[in-house]
């Protein structure tokens, strides 16, 4: 735990600075009310009405997010394997190649089915 506590010190300094800046800007900045200024900025045209809660997000983003999770978990398996690789030798190599191949099969499927295409 000793190794992790210094992080808190740095985080506290950074947080203090950020909060201070935000409070500061209220105090130092001018306040001149203008209704148009508080509208969403859309290059001068009437702002598009926003659906509550941001509305629907294109499904592409969800696919990317799911793929990210798959690969991120693969990475999480790869890290300890890499660190302990020398101890595991050939066995570690074979098993990890099998694992990577399994993920690669899903990856190839996604690729071929257009899951990686953006338009």
């Amino acid at each position, binding site marked *: 735990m000793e190794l992790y506590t210094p992080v808190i010190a740095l985080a506290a300094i950074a947080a203090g600075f950020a909060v201070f800046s935000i409070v500061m800007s209220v105090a130092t900045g001018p306040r001149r009310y203008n209704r148009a200024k508080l509208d969403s900025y859309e290059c001068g045209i009437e702002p598009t009405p926003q659906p509550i809660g941001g509305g629907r997000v294109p499904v592409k983003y969800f696919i990317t997010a799911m793929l990210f999770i798959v690969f991120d978990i693969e990475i999480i398996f790869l890290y300890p394997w890499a660190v*302990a690789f020398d*101890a*595991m030798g050939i066995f570690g190599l074979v098993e990890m190649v099998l694992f990577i191949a399994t993920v690669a099969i899903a990856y*190839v*499927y996604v690729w*071929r*089915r257009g899951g990686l295409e953006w338009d």
Partner: protein
Amino acid sequence: MSFEAPHIEYATLSPLLIVFGVALVGVLVEAFVPRRLRYLVQSVLALVGLVAALAATIWVATDLTVRGDGAARGSIVAEGAIAVDGPSVFVWGTLLLLSLISVLLFAERHLDGGLSAFAGQAAALPGTEAERQASTRGLEHTEVYPLMMFAVAGMMLFPASNDLLTMFVALEILSLPLYLLCGLARRRRLLSQEAALKYFMLGAFSSGFFLYGVALVYGFSGSTHLAAIAEAVNGRIGGQGLLLGGIALIAVGMLFKVGAAPFHSWTPDVYQGAPTAVTAFMAACTKIAAFGALLRLFYVAFGSAERDWTPMIWIVAILTMAVGSVFALSQTDIKRMLAYSSVAHAGFLLVGFVGLHEGGEGISSLQSVLFYLVTYGFMTVGAFAVVTLVRDAGGEANHLARWAGLGKESPLVAGIFAFFLLAMAGIPLTSGFTGKWAVFSSAAQGGAWPLVVIAVLLSVVAAFFYLRVIVLMYFSDPVGDAPAVAVPSILTTVTIAIGLAATVVLGILPGPVLDLAADAGAFIR
């Protein structure tokens, strides 16, 4: 850093590995084989894979090592994660046989104008132009085959897992493909998608229960290995509350998969919404796998704590039988009715499970439940296969009113369906009777006779709603224009024939399969 390479017994695990491998190859086929060839390649691949796995299972079954006093055979492999013993192999064989005939149902393209029962493009919104285009272009999702193979692999791993974490992984492997498959119906897609979502939500929730239970049991025993847990339970070390809480939560997760009341509420919706081929596969195979795992978990790991969990299972069993039998009476949809019937069957199976009869004289609880699962599996797949045949312009005609007068319209189909219903009701000379007899007699010998009395009474109630459908088919006139009975291809015909044959043979000559179940012996620890 010292490291001991784990030892994996590839030969003993070959049935599992074959099914997983075929599923992976199926994914590659989806990626690279041209669309017009995929249906053929996928269905043949699935069939060949399942047959190969079945052959491997038989080979493994003949090669099991006898342990100790000879009551159990098999070995614990993959560093203690998987137990390949008699019951495992028996369940594997049953699952593979039922999966084989389910694949035939999946591959049926004769009933709906040359299209399979699965959505042309699952991503297209129901009722949109995209959906219409997908169906005019004759698209179909051949992904169902790899998905099904993954589910089968998970189902095989589930009852064989000797470690709670492996069991959880298996639970997820079998569940996730099923959630997807449920949402892929070609007709009535909103209902299908609703079913998939409900199943997913509740399934995820129950997995959470299971996992929390695993955590508590780990807290109690300091291990996730069933043998170590059994030792801890036996010695009553650790906090009692943790153990009881863990057992209860794990039971919730398991009983959900089994479809026992009060965790049955997903069953009717999902069975109704899912494509009928998937319903058949799911109803039969999930129940078998889940009961296999339930038996192993409670007999091996929590065996010494039976006083703690039998009262709970008694109540659940009574409730399940009652809910299944009574609610089925009021159903107007044939698939919902069969769903409640499967809930009732789960109740009867729980009676056998909680009988805790070790064997000696008569048949043991394990043996009776395994036998019941075989009989249940074949008649369920058969019955759902018949359901796919009765159709009208909108697809399958599932409303009971549409089945009125089917006996005059198509005596053969009505006769076969009536026979399946009689088997489910447990009329003598059908496999349903021998199955119920096995389960009830072992439970009675195990001392659970009050439960058996209740079960017999409730199976009389259950018989009533099965007979209602038979009366409807034979003794009432069709309302409006009668639904047509579609002529199936050889695939569905074979499925129904096998289901029918198994139901008849197991009803008249249960001996060989009972012996096989007895031969499986006990679970190894």
